[in-house]
């Protein structure tokens, strides 16, 4: 029954019991003594009995207080320290000063904690060594995913995202929030996915996939949720080891909008050409026939027809000029090509000759980006190099890229004289390895709308030049961009997650998806006109803080930002000027949160600001909420220091000064704190969301009662 009370309260109750029992026993004893005495010393007995009782109660209270200071509180502190050490912060030091009255317990606990740290360190080293190769593979996977030219998304059967790569994120940027553990339908239309998944599942269950040319893969074309972008790709089913049931699917895709748009433009050009040329050509033909067949036509009439003929020819020329310009604006051909860096193409090519008996190729010069089918270009250049070797006997080549104005070139340079165009023409007419069947060098060049020729570089050197199309997008020389290099791109642990559980409350805290958020405001009184000026959030999925999937927006509060609050969070009037207002930002944040559990440090404060905007924004958050202030008070009840700084320090989490008091910085810090708290909550018997909410609620009740007194 007493389990629900803390150790210190239980000890206090024992002493209270003694304090109550002492006067009762004395009263009973003195009453019995009075009955056996002849005279009537009741007043004396009451007087001295009362004094003795009060003295004894005082002594018991004093001993109880000493006991609390010397025994109960040190035991609680040492226990909490041990819990923190075991579950949250391996570097935490057990404060044995507090336990100095507990005899050998203090030194023993310190010794045990040091031993534990040492053992943990040893185990850590072993684990580190054992997982090193695993980490390397992970990095390799991440690198491959990052640099893949196609978007990749892996989903479970509920269409929840388990993995995505940078290209997928870029392709779907601006549509919605692609995120681990979320349904892919937050960014794409659902029908093609459902249909294709059903088709593939049927193919698997019927066993047809074994003889199917595409096995467990099917092509699909789909649109983003707002229909702005058309994507085409392939869905491949992931199956269990027994090859009986599907587990999820892999989606690879690329943006087809541009390609489809180019096709449409070409189609339009062709139609216009056919329709547009008919008129002038018919007129020219009729006029020319008339002039030829009517030699005796009067001179004046003949001149009129000749002028008309000349005008029609000029019109036709104008149409051709316009059509050529339009055609040139469709920059690339429909052959699959991508932006590549010349350094990658040329290095790959030069590697081929590492073991060649005579051929040597060095890569030189400044690399540049170009748009090409790199594989076909490598094969073509290889073919040309071997041609030059055979024709001139040159064995040493320099491979380089060059830029002149907007034009980009790949060049093969050798010591010697240029090759005749007719010779190169014969090489380009030969078939080369292309990976897609027989193709000539000219086929490859045609796909790139290019050509190749040889010319002198200086008096002793010649080169072969291949003009290359410009890249589709501007690239810096270093791979970078708005996105961090290392994102939390995948979590296959989600695959093992139970099927959707209706009752969130019964689910384990570590299995839930959270959005930890924070706001910055103009002041502390939302009901007196203070407004949000920044809101940020970060997701936690399967116990991992996904720092790459963050939400971070400034908000124009529609009122001045007081200088004193700018001093706290660094957000000034200039910074919020021109930012979207709250009724634009909150709906986006609502989308970002989805059905996640909300977590915040002092959540009531932030929620109050959001709640007051409910009418204006039409946004309502009915998600479950956890407050890390309350959770901290549950797991660290030996202290009343529950500010974010204090809690973070206890968990050995460093908040960079420049990030402190920014909505995103505090969100991330709170998220890291919360993840560590989950371990401590479990150590305190709190495993599920319902249990965490119940414990928080109890604490709120106690605080309300304390506040009432």
């Amino acid at each position: 029954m007493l389990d629900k009370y803390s150790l210190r309260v239980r000890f206090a109750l024992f002493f209270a019991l003694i304090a109550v029992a002492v006067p009762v026993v004395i009263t009973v004893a003195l009453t019995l003594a009075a009955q056996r005495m002849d005279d009537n010393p009741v007043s004396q007995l009451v007087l001295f009995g009362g004094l003795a009782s009060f003295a004894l109660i005082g002594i018991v209270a004093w001993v109880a207080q000493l006991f609390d200071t010397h025994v109960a509180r040190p035991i609680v502190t040492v226990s909490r320290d041990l819990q923190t050490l075991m579950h949250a912060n391996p570097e935490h030091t057990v404060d044995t000063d507090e336990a100095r009255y507990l005899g050998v317990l203090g030194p023993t606990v310190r010794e045990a904690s040091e031993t534990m740290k040492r053992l943990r360190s040893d185990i850590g080293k072993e684990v580190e060594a054992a997982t090193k190769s695993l980490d390397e593979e992970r990095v390799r996977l991440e690198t491959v995913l990052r640099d893949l030219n196609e978007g990749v998304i892996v989903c479970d059967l509920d269409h929840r995202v388990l993995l995505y790569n940078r290209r997928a994120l870029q392709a779907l940027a601006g549509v919605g929030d692609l995120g681990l553990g979320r349904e892919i339908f937050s960014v794409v239309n659902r029908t093609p996915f459902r249909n294709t998944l059903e088709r593939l599942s049927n193919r698997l269950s019927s066993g047809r996939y074994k003889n199917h040319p595409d096995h467990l893969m099917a092509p699909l074309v789909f649109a983003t949720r707002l229909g702005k972008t058309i994507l085409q790709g392939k869905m491949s089913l992931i199956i269990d080891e027994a090859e009986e049931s599907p587990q999820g699917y892999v989606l690879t895709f690329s943006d087809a909008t541009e390609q489809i748009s180019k096709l449409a433009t070409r189609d339009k050009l062709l139609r216009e050409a056919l329709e547009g040329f008919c008129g002038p050509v018919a007129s020219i033909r009729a006029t020319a026939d008339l002039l030829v067949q009517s030699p005796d036509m009067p001179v004046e009439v003949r001149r009129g027809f000749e002028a008309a003929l000349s005008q029609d020819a000029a019109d036709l020329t104008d149409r051709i000029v316009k059509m050529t310009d339009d055609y040139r604006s469709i920059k690339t051909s429909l052959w699959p090509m991508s932006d590549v860096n010349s350094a990658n193409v040329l290095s790959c090519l030069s590697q081929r000759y590492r073991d060649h008996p005579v051929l040597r190729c060095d890569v030189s010069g400044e690399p540049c980006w170009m748009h090409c089918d790199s594989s076909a270009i490598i094969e073509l250049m290889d073919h040309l190099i071997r041609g030059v070797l055979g024709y001139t006997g040159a064995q040493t080549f320099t491979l380089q890229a060059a830029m002149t104005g907007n034009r980009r070139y790949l060049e093969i340079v050798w010591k010697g004289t240029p090759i005749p165009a007719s010779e190169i023409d014969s090489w380009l007419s030969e078939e080369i390895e292309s990976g897609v069947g027989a193709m000539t060098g000219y086929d490859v060049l045609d796909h790139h709308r290019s050509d190749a020729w040889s010319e002198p570089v200086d008096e002793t050197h010649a080169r072969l030049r291949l003009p290359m199309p410009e890249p589709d997008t501007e690239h810096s020389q270093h791979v970078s961009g708005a996105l961090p290099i290392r994102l939390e791109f995948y979590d296959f642990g989600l695959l093992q997650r139970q099927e959707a559980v209706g009752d969130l409350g019964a689910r384990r805290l570590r299995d839930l998806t959270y959005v930890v958020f924070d706001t910055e405001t103009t002041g502390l009184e939302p009901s007196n006109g203070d407004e949000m000026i920044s809101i940020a959030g970060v997701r936690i999925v399967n116990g991992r803080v996904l720092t790459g999937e963050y939400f971070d927006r400034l908000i124009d509060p529609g009122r001045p930002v007081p200088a004193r609050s700018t001093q706290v969070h660094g957000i000034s009037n200039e910074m919020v000027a021109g930012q979207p207002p709250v009724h634009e930002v909150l709906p986006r944040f609502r989308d970002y949160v989805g059905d996640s559990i909300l977590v915040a440090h002092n959540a009531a404060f932030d929620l109050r600001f959001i709640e007051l905007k409910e009418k204006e924004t039409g946004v309502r958050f009915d998600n479950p909420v956890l407050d890390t202030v309350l959770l901290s008070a549950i797991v660290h009840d030996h202290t009343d220091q529950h500010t974010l700084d204090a809690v973070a320090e206890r968990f050995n989490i460093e908040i960079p000064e420049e990030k402190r008091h920014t909505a995103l910085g505090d969100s991330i810090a709170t998220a890291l704190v919360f993840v560590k708290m989950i371990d401590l909550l479990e150590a305190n018997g709190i495993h599920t969301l319902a249990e965490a909410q119940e414990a928080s609620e109890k604490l709120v009740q106690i605080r309300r009662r304390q506040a009432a007194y």
Partner: protein
Amino acid sequence: MGDSDNKRFVLVVDDELNLRKAMQYILEHQGYRVDSASDGNEALVKIKQNPPDLVLLDLQAPTCSGYDVCQSVRADQALNRVKILIFSALGKDIAVEKAMALGADGYVLKPFCTADLIDTVGKYCGQGEIQNA
């Protein structure tokens, strides 16, 4: 100099007979002396026999491409005063660039109007009639 009769000499190389005839007529009308060839090999023979002031060269000339003619002329020191203008279809930037790299001096885009042709030829080799000082 092309000829002793004070006319600049132009060689037109194109496999389209009608176009060849038309250009010959237009240029002769402008005071040039004009000869023509229907393919690259014939053009090279004529250029070497009697070097013209200007060659109007279609890149798609059969048997020996316009590029080969450019390279052969530029490889022959005796022909270093011969100017070469190539005909290129619209939108063939790379073809023009390739021809210029291989020795052409300028280009005329097809389809062209008579005035443009006369202007460009005049720009590269002067008026048809040579004015004696």
